[in-house]
């Protein structure tokens, strides 16, 4: 089998696939998410902390583990692979880009952050 091997970059290559699949929305659907980077950081940070704690607990309990040949090999305290931290950035960015892309197309749908005078509640 002439299968392509990404070796220690396998994990981040999958994250690259995720970003490849969504970053074009910023241009094509004018999502303007990356331009609003302060709001983006405030949305990502709390979830990143909570899920990193869960991750450290799960690794310590042996719920899951990573193939050492397929990750970068850089670990944060708690045996947390750097790749996992990048996951908790890439997936939220992709999610918010998707939400704003749907809003871009469905501009009449209420999202919940409209100014109060424009919404019924």
């Amino acid at each position, binding site marked *: 089998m002439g299968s392509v091997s990404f070796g220690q970059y*396998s*994990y981040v290559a*999958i994250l690259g*696939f*995720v970003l490849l*699949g969504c970053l074009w929305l910023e*241009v*094509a*659907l*004018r*999502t*303007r*998410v990356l*331009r*609003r980077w*302060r*709001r*983006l950081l*405030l*949305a*990502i940070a*709390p*979830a990143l902390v*909570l*899920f990193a704690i*869960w991750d450290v607990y*799960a690794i310590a*309990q*042996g*719920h*899951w*583990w*990573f*193939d050492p040949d*397929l*990750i970068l090999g850089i670990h944060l305290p708690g045996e947390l692979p750097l790749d996992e931290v990048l996951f*908790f950035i890439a*997936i*939220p960015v*992709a*999610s*918010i880009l*998707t*939400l*704003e*892309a*749907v*809003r*871009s*197309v*469905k*501009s009449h*749908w*209420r*999202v*919940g*952050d409209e*100014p109060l005078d424009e919404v019924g509640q």
Partner: protein
Amino acid sequence: MTYTQLAVGSVVAVVLIDLWVLRTRMVTRAVFWSSYAIIFFFQLVTNGMFTGFGVVKYDGDSIIGETSPAVGPPPFLGEGRIAYAPVEDLMFGFALILLTIALWVFWGRRGVQRTPVAGPPVWRRSPAEGNQV
């Protein structure tokens, strides 16, 4: 606690946060479920790559299914797995996605970079451009 228990608990906790702590009520909105439907497809593909290629492996005592095999992919479907990944991963992902989106909307509602708003897509004229024609 097992991964199964934590995964179910996280979904319940984040839904409660969305409804009654942040009061963003994303789970009551078409825009959220339409977005999640798109995300769900890519979630299956991404989870499938992580688990199918064996980047991440799971302990059978902590999930519904069996321990990931040392060599080769786990079952594609069945034994608690969907597209190679434990169903728990879908719940983990849902909790992460809902919490992030609810926080994004929460900060926007608080006035943090509510603008510039999204849209319109490049293939549509903006209202301002339309008026000039």
